[in-house]
């Protein structure tokens, strides 16, 4: 017993070094597996506040571009107003096959909440964004985050007033997407090279693809609403050893200027998840 104590005392520094290494690696790998950071709730309250201070300064430099994006989004939405569509032939009427919106409330699947971006990084391999809306304001983990022009990311950690979002520019982010023309599906991921481009994998080679084709989120994604813009096809690699294309998409969201985002709550997500996990259990 005495020898053990002597050993510990002699190699205290080395053992202490190993212990601290183990602790940091535990943080790291736990995060990799579950995407939940230790003490992130407390930490992001503090970092969020400092980020917010910084953001009040840098906000002004990006305001012009952010406004341009918001106006473009408004134009898109205005184009969809029913009063815009009037055929010249008055006998020909457009019949809208739906009920009034206020009676549809209970069927609303996706709820949108606005949030201001307070912190945003592009230089690392796993890029995160801090938004000023947290658990107290109704944000939960695994909600989708979209910007005025397209997909932004997914909520990974929430504290009382802030949440961290894993952006599409993160090596661990994946979302199911489809080509707008053919409806063929693939998986979106990022290769870590350029913050302007993301990759779409597993698109079969029989699909006709052209440069500039739009890619939207698919109906299979459980957190993102369908038909949200992901990007446009920039180039595609024809790898002869595989039956699939890897497309390089120009991301629809400009991550360096995004200022306001929408947090999307899927009100039927819990039900779907429960059903799916129950099914998985019966199959095992």
């Amino acid at each position, binding site marked *: 017993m005495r020898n053990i104590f002597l050993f510990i005392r002699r190699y*205290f*520094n*080395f053992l*202490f*070094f190993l212990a*601290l*290494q183990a*602790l*940091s*690696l*535990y*943080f*790291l*790998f736990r*995060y*990799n597996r579950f995407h939940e*950071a*230790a*003490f*992130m709730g407390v*930490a*992001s309250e*503090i*970092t969020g506040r*400092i*980020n917010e201070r*910084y953001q009040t300064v840098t906000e002004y430099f990006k305001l012009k571009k952010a406004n341009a994006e918001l106006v473009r989004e408004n134009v898109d939405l205005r184009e969809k107003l029913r009063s815009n569509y009037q055929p010249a032939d008055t006998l020909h009427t457009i019949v809208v096959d739906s009920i009034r919106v206020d009676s549809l409330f209970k069927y609303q699947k996706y709820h949108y909440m606005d949030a201001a971006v307070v*912190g945003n*990084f*592009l*230089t*690392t*391999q*796993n890029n*995160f964004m*801090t938004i000023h809306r947290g658990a107290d304001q109704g944000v939960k983990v695994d909600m989708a985050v979209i910007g005025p022009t397209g997909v932004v990311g997914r909520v990974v*950690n929430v504290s009382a007033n802030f949440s*961290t979002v894993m952006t599409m520019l993160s*090596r*661990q982010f994946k979302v199911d997407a489809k080509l707008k023309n053919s409806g063929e599906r693939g998986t979106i991921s990022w290769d*870590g*090279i*350029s*913050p302007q481009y993301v990759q779409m994998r597993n698109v079969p080679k029989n699909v006709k693809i052209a440069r500039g084709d739009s890619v939207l989120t698919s109906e299979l994604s459980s957190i993102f609403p369908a038909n949200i813009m992901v990007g446009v096809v920039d180039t595609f690699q024809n790898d002869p050893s595989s039956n699939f294309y890897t497309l390089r998409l120009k991301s629809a969201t400009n991550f*360096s200027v995004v200022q306001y985002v929408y947090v999307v709550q899927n009100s039927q997500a819990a039900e779907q998840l429960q059903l799916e996990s129950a099914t998985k259990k019966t199959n095992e």
Partner: protein
Amino acid sequence: MSDLVKNIIRFMVFILVQVYVLHKIPPLHRFVVPYLYFLYIIWLPFNIGRGWLMVISFFFGLTLDYFLGFPGLHAAPCVLIAYVRPFLVNLLIRQEGAEQSYGSPSIHSMGWAPYFLLVLVLTILHHTYLVFLEWLTLGNDFWFFIGKIGVMTAISLLLILITELLFYRKERYRTNTA
């Protein structure tokens, strides 16, 4: 200013500069990530015990991690260089008893060549471990590994050189008198 206050201020300044200046630089290439923050660990005084040195470095790295949203990634390399620093200082120190006569490692207390060697070795160690962890968790090709370490080391050394020239720390020779 006492050493404690000076180092607490340095702690905050290094973190803020790393997060809000160096990490806000628009990405040029995926290899280019300017790191300067670990200079704080090199600048810590000689007379801190090795255990405390590691504890301070751990929290220093962890603070940066929480700002960047990926805990553990910078804490581990920081603990590594804090563990290695005393060995290197003992090997590289120029004259007998310089650790007692001077406050902390600097060009003035160690001389150009040994100080540069200390910075070089710790930079390479830090970056190698950091990129290795990134490589483990994310999985890249081998050229990513080598290239990123090389480019990041070059940029860090340049930044450290600029910092040393701008903020020249003239260490006072400590004596028992007065």
